[in-house]
């Protein structure tokens, strides 16, 4: 059996907003809209990535040293957790395309649970940094070479992961909204744009983390002792 099947959309006026001609146009507009929004999100994070690039080129020693203080295992486990949540999200979109709303609900709840685990581990890491005086500001202390530039690394770290976590929180809100829609059977085979587009958003936030993980946790090779 081929891995990809194609099926024409059923024509139905159910859940069609009046300013659209048909459901197909409505679905395409929604998908395009979400992609356009994600392009703006690339630029939003792009500002911080530019800053990262500039300072990493300028202060490689400090970035190397500061990155050794990151919790390697927390970062790695979080990467796995987040990719796992992307899988459950992709499966939820799949279930919504087949109109299996019960599956959608449970897969989305699994996605939210994994998202919450991610945020929990992140909070634990923030707490660790706080205890070790690695939060930039007057109490910042760094026992390595070049502490001033290490503070820039941690400033970037908190800004980047902070905005990423904010996106996760917004994502959790969006997912709980589509859980509600699916539970009330407002999602159908013909009309599942909300699931699809929240899915796109969720995968995008995952993608951002896919870059943040090596850039923040794996800057240079790990000193095995650390």
């Amino acid at each position, binding site marked *: 059996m081929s891995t990809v099947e*194609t099926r024409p959309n059923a024509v139905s006026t159910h859940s069609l907003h009046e300013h659209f001609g048909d459901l197909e146009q409505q679905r395409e507009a929604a998908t395009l809209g979400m992609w356009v929004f994600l*392009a703006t999100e690339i630029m939003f994070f792009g500002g911080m990535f530019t800053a990262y690039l500039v300072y990493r080129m300028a202060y490689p020693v400090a970035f190397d040293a500061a990155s050794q203080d990151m919790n390697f295992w927390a970062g790695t486990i979080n990467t796995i957790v987040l990719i796992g949540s992307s899988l459950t999200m992709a499966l939820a979109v799949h279930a919504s395309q087949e109109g299996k709303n019960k599956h959608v609900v449970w897969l989305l709840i699994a996605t939210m649970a994994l998202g919450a685990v991610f945020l929990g581990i992140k909070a634990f890491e923030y707490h660790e940094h706080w205890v070790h005086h690695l939060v930039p500001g007057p109490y910042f202390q760094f026992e390595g070479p070049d502490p001033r530039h290490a503070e820039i690394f941690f400033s970037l770290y908190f800004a980047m992961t902070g905005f990423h976590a904010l996106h996760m929180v917004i994502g959790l809100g969006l997912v709980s909204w589509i859980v509600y829609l699916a539970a009330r059977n407002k999602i159908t085979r013909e009309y599942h744009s909300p699931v699809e587009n929240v899915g*796109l958003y969720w995968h995008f936030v995952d993608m951002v983390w896919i870059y943040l993980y090596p850039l923040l946790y794996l800057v240079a090779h790990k000193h095995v002792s650390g």
Partner: protein
Amino acid sequence: MAETIVSRRIYFIIFFALMVFTVITAAVSYIDLGAWSGVVAVGIASTKALLVALFFMHLRYDHQKIVWIVAISGFFWLGILFVLTATDYATRNFLTVPGR
């Protein structure tokens, strides 16, 4: 126009591939590659991101050409930001005059 439904198996295969790349990138960080470590790390991350975009985000199956254009131009503009900013930082200390 039609909508494409991807088989569930593909999602599991992609998930598995993403896991493998995650393990590789974590393992590579224990090897000293010098200046290449950053290149390798970003290269692996980009491969992972591409897999997510193509399969999880259905870019590979999307029937709207414009969606491709949007996705590519997002990264293209990021490239503009990187490259033109780099023209300054890469050449700022070519002259030995302070601040030039």
